[in-house]
C-alpha cells in the first residue's frame, strides 16, 4: 500500500482537466460520471487503510523550510476523510441535473440582459445553449474535484503549512462556483465569502507562523515533542481559535454564511455544509486539542459556552426563515454550534460525540440540501410559503428528508442520536467531575437547544411536505435518480451508523481517550 493517500488527494487535482474536456466534448453526463467514478475510486483508497484499524501514514520530501509533506490517517482523521469523500462522491452525482438546469438559467438570463441592452432580437439556439452548458459543466466538475481535494488534504495534513495550503485551496473553487453559478447578487456575495474566509485563514496563518517559527518546525510531531514556547502559546491559540471559528461560522463571526448559502448553487451548499464547515471542527481537534492541551483546558469552557450560544442563536434564526436555503444556513450554524459545544466538553466521550456529530450533520444536512435542490429543480421556488403538500408528489424525497431531519434532531435510530447522546453525556461528565455549576447549566441549556432544533425542522417539514397542495404545484414530479439515489444512500448510512455506531466509534473513542485521558 504505497502512495495510496497521495493518489487519493492528487488524482482529483491532476484529472480535473480531464473532467473539463470530457464535459466539453462528451457532455454533462460523461463529466458527471467521470467525476463520480474518480471520487468513488479515491473514496475506496481512503477507506482501505482505515479498515486495518491502526493509523496509517505516508511521508514525502518537501522543501527544507516547511518540513516534510506527510499524510496521516488516524482515528481522528479517518472518519473526517471518509465522510468528506463519501459526501463529495454523492454530491457529484446530484450536481448533474441541478447544475445543468442552473447553467442554462444563467445563460438565458445573460442573453435576456443583452437583448434588453442591445435591443437585439436574436433568439437562443438550443445548440448554442447545449454547447455552453457542456462547456460550463466541464468547468464546474473541474472546480468540484479541486475542492474535494482541498478538503481531504486539510484533514490528512501533518504539517501546519500543508494544512494552510489545503485550507486555502478549497476556498478558490468555492469562490468561482459561487461567482459563476450563484443566485441574485452572486458576485458581491462571492467577494464577501472570500473576504471573510480569507481573513479567517490569514489569522490562522498568523498563529501557524508564530508556532512554526518559535518551535523551528511546522510538523505536528515536532511541535508535539518540543512543545510550544509559552510566550507565543496564548497568541497562537487565540489566532487559531478565531481562524477556525470563522470557518465554522460560530455566533458573531457567522455573518458570511447566510448570505453565501442564499446565493450559492445548491450542490455547493451541500458540499460546504456537509464537509467544508466540518474542516473547521477538524482543525480544533488537531490543532487545539492535540497540539496545545494546556491551552485547550484553558479555553474549553469558553468554547463550550460559545458553542451553546451558537446553537441556540442559530436555532432561533432558523425558526423565522422563509427561504429554505437560508433556513438550512442557520441550521448549519446551529449544528456547528453543537460541534463546538462538544469540543468544549473536555471529555473523551464529549469529543467523540462531537466528531460523530460532524458525521451525522454531514449525512443529514446533505440530504436536506439535496431535498432543497430537488424542490428547486421540480418546483422552481425557494420560498417555504410557496410550498406545501409535496409528500404526495415526491414520496422518496419526503421519506429521505424525514430521515435527514431525524438525523439532525438526534432521534434514534439515526446516527444523530448516537452523536448527541455521547456528546451531551461527555459534557455532563465534565460538569460532575469539576463540580462546575456553569457546565451543569450549559448542559441543560444544550438539551433545551435540541428542542429548538426539533421545532424548526419539524415546522419546515410540515410546511414543505404536508398540508394542502397549492394549485401551482399540481404537476410536480418526483426528482430523478441523480437526486434520489444519493439521498437514499445517505439516509441508509445514517440509520446503519445509528444502530451500529461502532463503525466509527471504534476508531474515534480510543483516539479521544488517548488524547484527553478520561
Amino acid at each position, binding site marked *: 500500500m504505497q502512495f495510496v493517500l497521495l493518489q487519493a488527494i492528487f488524482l482529483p487535482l491532476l484529472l480535473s482537466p480531464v473532467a473539463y474536456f470530457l464535459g466539453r466534448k462528451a457532455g454533462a453526463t460523461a463529466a458527471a460520471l467521470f467525476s463520480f467514478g474518480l471520487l468513488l475510486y479515491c473514496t475506496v483508497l481512503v477507506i482501505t487503510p482505515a479498515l486495518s484499524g491502526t493509523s496509517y501514514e505516508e511521508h514525502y520530501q518537501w522543501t527544507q523550510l516547511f518540513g516534510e509533506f506527510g499524510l496521516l490517517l488516524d482515528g481522528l482523521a479517518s472518519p473526517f476523510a471518509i465522510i468528506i469523500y463519501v459526501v463529495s462522491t454523492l454530491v457529484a452525482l446530484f450536481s448533474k441535473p441541478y447544475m445543468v438546469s442552473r447553467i442554462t438559467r444563467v445563460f438565458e438570463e445573460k442573453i435576456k440582459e443583452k437583448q434588453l441592452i442591445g435591443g437585439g432580437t436574436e433568439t437562443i439556439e438550443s445548440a448554442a445553449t447545449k454547447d455552453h452548458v457542456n462547456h460550463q459543466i466541464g468547468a464546474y466538475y473541474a472546480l468540484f474535484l479541486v475542492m474535494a481535494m482541498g478538503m481531504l488534504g486539510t484533514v490528512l495534513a501533518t504539517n501546519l503549512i500543508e494544512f494552510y495550503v489545503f485550507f486555502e485551496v478549497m476556498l478558490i473553487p468555492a469562490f468561482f462556483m459561487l461567482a459563476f453559478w450563484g443566485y441574485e447578487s452572486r458576485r458581491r456575495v462571492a467577494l464577501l465569502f472570500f473576504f471573510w474566509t480569507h481573513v479567517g485563514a490569514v489569522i490562522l496563518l498568523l498563529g501557524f507562523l508564530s508556532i512554526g517559527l518559535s518551535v523551528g518546525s511546522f510538523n505536528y510531531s515536532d511541535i508535539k515533542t518540543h512543545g510550544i514556547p509559552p510566550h507565543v502559546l496564548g497568541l497562537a491559540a487565540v489566532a487559531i481559535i478565531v481562524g477556525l471559528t470563522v470557518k465554522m461560522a460560530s455566533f*458573531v463571526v457567522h*455573518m458570511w454564511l447566510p*448570505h453565501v448559502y442564499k446565493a450559492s448553487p445548491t450542490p455547493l451548499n451541500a458540499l460546504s455544509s456537509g464537509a467544508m464547515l466540518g474542516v473547521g471542527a477538524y482543525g480544533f481537534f488537531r490543532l487545539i486539542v492535540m497540539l496545545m492541551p494546556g491551552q485547550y483546558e484553558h479555553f474549553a469552557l469558553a468554547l463550550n459556552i460559545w458553542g451553546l450560544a451558537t446553537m441556540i442563536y442559530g436555532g432561533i434564526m432558523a425558526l*423565522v426563515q422563509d427561504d429554505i436555503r437560508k433556513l438550512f444556513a442557520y441550521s448549519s450554524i446551529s449544528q456547528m454550534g453543537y460541534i463546538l459545544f462538544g469540543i468544549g466538553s473536555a471529555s473523551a466521550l464529549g469529543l467523540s460525540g462531537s466528531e460523530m456529530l460532524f458525521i451525522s450533520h454531514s449525512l443529514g444536512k446533505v440530504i436536506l440540501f439535496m431535498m432543497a435542490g430537488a424542490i428547486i429543480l421540480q418546483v422552481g421556488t425557494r420560498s417555504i410559503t410557496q410550498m406545501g*403538500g409535496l409528500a404526495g408528489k415526491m414520496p422518496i424525497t419526503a421519506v429521505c428528508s424525514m430521515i435527514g431531519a431525524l438525523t439532525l434532531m438526534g432521534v434514534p435510530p439515526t446516527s444523530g*442520536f448516537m452523536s448527541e447522546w455521547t456528546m451531551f453525556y461527555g459534557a455532563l461528565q465534565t460538569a460532575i467531575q469539576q463540580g462546575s455549576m456553569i457546565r451543569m447549566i450549559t448542559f*441543560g441549556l444544550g438539551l433545551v437547544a435540541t*428542542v429548538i432544533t426539533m421545532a424548526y425542522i419539524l415546522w419546515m417539514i410540515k410546511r414543505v411536505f*404536508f398540508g394542502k397542495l397549492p394549485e401551482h404545484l399540481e404537476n410536480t414530479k418526483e426528482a430523478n435518480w441523480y437526486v434520489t439515489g444519493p439521498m437514499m444512500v445517505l439516509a441508509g448510512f445514517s440509520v446503519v451508523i445509528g444502530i451500529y455506531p461502532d463503525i466509527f466509534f471504534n476508531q474515534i473513542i480510543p483516539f479521544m481517550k488517548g488524547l484527553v485521558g478520561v
Partner: protein
Amino acid sequence: MAILPFDLSSGFGDLSVWAIWILPFAAALIIPAFGRVSKSSTGWVAVAFALASAISAVTLLPAALGNHEIHNQIPWISSIGLKAGVLADPLAVIMSNIVAWISFLIFVYSTGYMKGDKDLTRFFFWMAFFLGSMQLIVLSDNFLQLFFGWEGVGLASYALVGFWYRDKKKDHVGVEGRHVLGLVDYYSPTHSGMKAFIMTKVGDIMMLAGMFLIFAFAGTFGFRELTANTSWATAMSAQHLLIPAAVLLFGGAIGKSAQFPLNEWLLEAMTGPTAVSALIHAATMVKAGVFLVARLAPLFFALAAIGINMDQFFEVIAWVGAITALLLATQGMVHPEIKKVLAYSTGSQIGYMMMALGVAGLSKQFVDGYTAGFFHLISHAMFKASLFMAAGSLLHIVGSRFMTDMGGLRKYMKKTYAFMWAAGLGLMGAPFITTGFWSKDAIFAAVYQSGNSWAIPLFAIAVVTAVITAFYTTRMIGLVFFGNKSKHVEELEKEGHHIHEASPSMWIPYGILAVLTIGVGVMGLAFEHQIHDLFVNYLGSTFGIKSSMDIVATDSQSLLGGFLQGINPIALTASLAAFAIGFGLGYIFYIGRFVDPVKFVNSNIFFYAIHKFFLNRWYLNAIIYWAFVVAPLYAARGLYKYFENIVLEGFNLVPERTMAGGARIMQATQTGVSQSYLYIFGVGILIVVFLLLI
C-alpha cells in the same frame, strides 16, 4: 464462550424474547415491498406478524408466572462497553402480553377501519413500527436501548397522528372558529403530530439528563446492574443528585404518558385515525410512561434498605398523578367530541396509575400500590381499547366526531351499543362485575392505607375523580345512544345513508375486549390476588422488597376469606358511592333526560363560568401556546429583524462601505491629468527631502 449469542440449551426462550420486538420491526421492513404488489395485503402482513409476536410473548408466560426471568445480552457499542439485551422478568412479560394482544386486536380492527385508504402501506408500516418500539421499551434491559423504543413510539405517534397529512377539514380536532385567549382551538393533523412529538421531546430531554446522571455515577445503563450494585446511589445521594436524577427520569414518563404539565398533546393526538388513538391510549405510547415508572419504582424503593430516602421522588409521582387525574377528568365532562372525551379519560386514568405507583413508594406495603397501579393498567388497556375502537365505528358510520351529531343510535347499532356499555361500565368502575371496579378499588385502598401524611387529600382527589369519571362516561353513552336522532343523522338518512352496524372485522375486536372487561371483572379479585402474589415474589426476589404474605395465604385456602381480606371497607364504600353519584347524575341529564344540561349550565353564572373554564381546558393549552410558541416566535422575528439584520450585518457592511468609500476617494485622486500628478510628485519629493534634512 459460545459462538451464538443465544443460549440454546434452555430452549428457545431467549430467542422468543428477541422475536417479540424484532418481528414487528421486520414486518415494518417488508410492508413497503408488499405494498408495491397490493396495498390491502399490507394489513394482513402486519396482522400476521403481530400475531406471531403475540404468540412468542405467550410462550414466556409460564416461566414468568413462576417468577423466572430471562436476561440475555449481545455486544453493541463495544467501544464504550455497552451491551444490548432483553430482560423478560414477570413485569416485562405481563406488559408485553398486554401490548401484544391488544395491538393484535387493534391491527385486525384497522384492516376494516382503514379499508380503502390510499396510503395503507404507510399506515401499517408505522403501526408495526409503533408496536415494535413499544415492545422494545418493555423488553429492554438498559436505559439506552429503552430510549430507542422510547423515541420510536414518539416518532410513530408523530407519523400516525399526522397520518392524514393533507390537513382536510374533516380530520381536524376542535371547533372551527373557537378561540381561547385569542388563540384558535382548532388543530390540523400535521400540527397535532408536531405538537405531540415536540411536547414529548421536552419530557425526553429530562429523561436523557436523568439517564446520563445515573450513567455518570454507575457507568452502566443496565437495570439489573443498577440493582446488583447500588454504590452509585450512595455516591449520588451524597452529592444530592439522586432525587433530581430520579425526578428527571420521571419527566420522561410525564411527557410520554401525558401527565400534567405536559398533558396537552394528548387531546390533539385525536387527529389520527381512531385505530391509532386506540393503540396510543391502550397499548403503546402513554402506557410506556407508566411502564417506565413501574420499572424504576422498585429500583428506587429498594434503596431504602441502604438508608436512602426516596420519599420526595414518590411524592412527586403521586401528586402529578393526582393532579392529572382530576384536571383531565373535569375537562372530559364538557367536551363535545367523543374521541376527546376518551382522550381526557385516558390521561385521567393514567393519573390514577401514577398515583398508585407513587403511593406505593410512600407506604410500607410497597406491593399493594404497585399491584393496584399495574392492575389498573391492565384493565384500562382492555376497556379503553374497546371504547376507542367502538368510537371509531361511530365516527366511521356517522361521519362526525361530535357527539351532538349522533344521538339515538342504540336501535341501529345494537352490538356497538352493548359493547360500549360493557367497556363503559369498566371505565366507570361499575361494582363487582368489571375489572375497572376492582382495579380502581385497589388503588383507593392502597392510597387510603398508605399511612402517609398525604393519604387523605390524595384519597379525596381519587374519589372525586371517580365520581366525575362515572358522570362523563354516562354522558358519553347517553349522548350517543339515547335521545332523538340528531339533525346530522337525519340529513344523512335523507341522503340515503342509513345508520348500520359496523363490519365484523371491526366489531369483533372491540367485542372481545368488552366481554373480557366483564369476564375478568367477575373474577376480578382472584385475578388481582394472582398479580399481587406474583409481584410479592418478584419484588422480593429481585429487589429484596419484603411484604407480608398473609393475604396470599388466606386467599388460596378459602375464596370467601380472600374476598373479605382484600377489601378495605372505607375504600369500598367510597368507590360504590362514587359510582352511584356519578352514574346517577349522568342518568338524570343524559339518559333519562329529565333536565336539559344546556339549560342547566346557562341557568346560573357559576355553572356557566365553570363550564367555560373546563371547556377552555383550564386555559393551560392557551397559556402554553402563548408562552412557548407565540411569544418566542415574536421575539425571534424581532431578533432577526433588528439584531441579525442590522447590528450583526454591520460586520459585512462596515468593511464594504469603508472600502467602497475609500476607493471612491482614491478614484477622485486619479484625475488622469499628468500635470497634477507631476505636481503632487514634486510636493512629495520636497517633503521627503525636508524630513531627511531634519
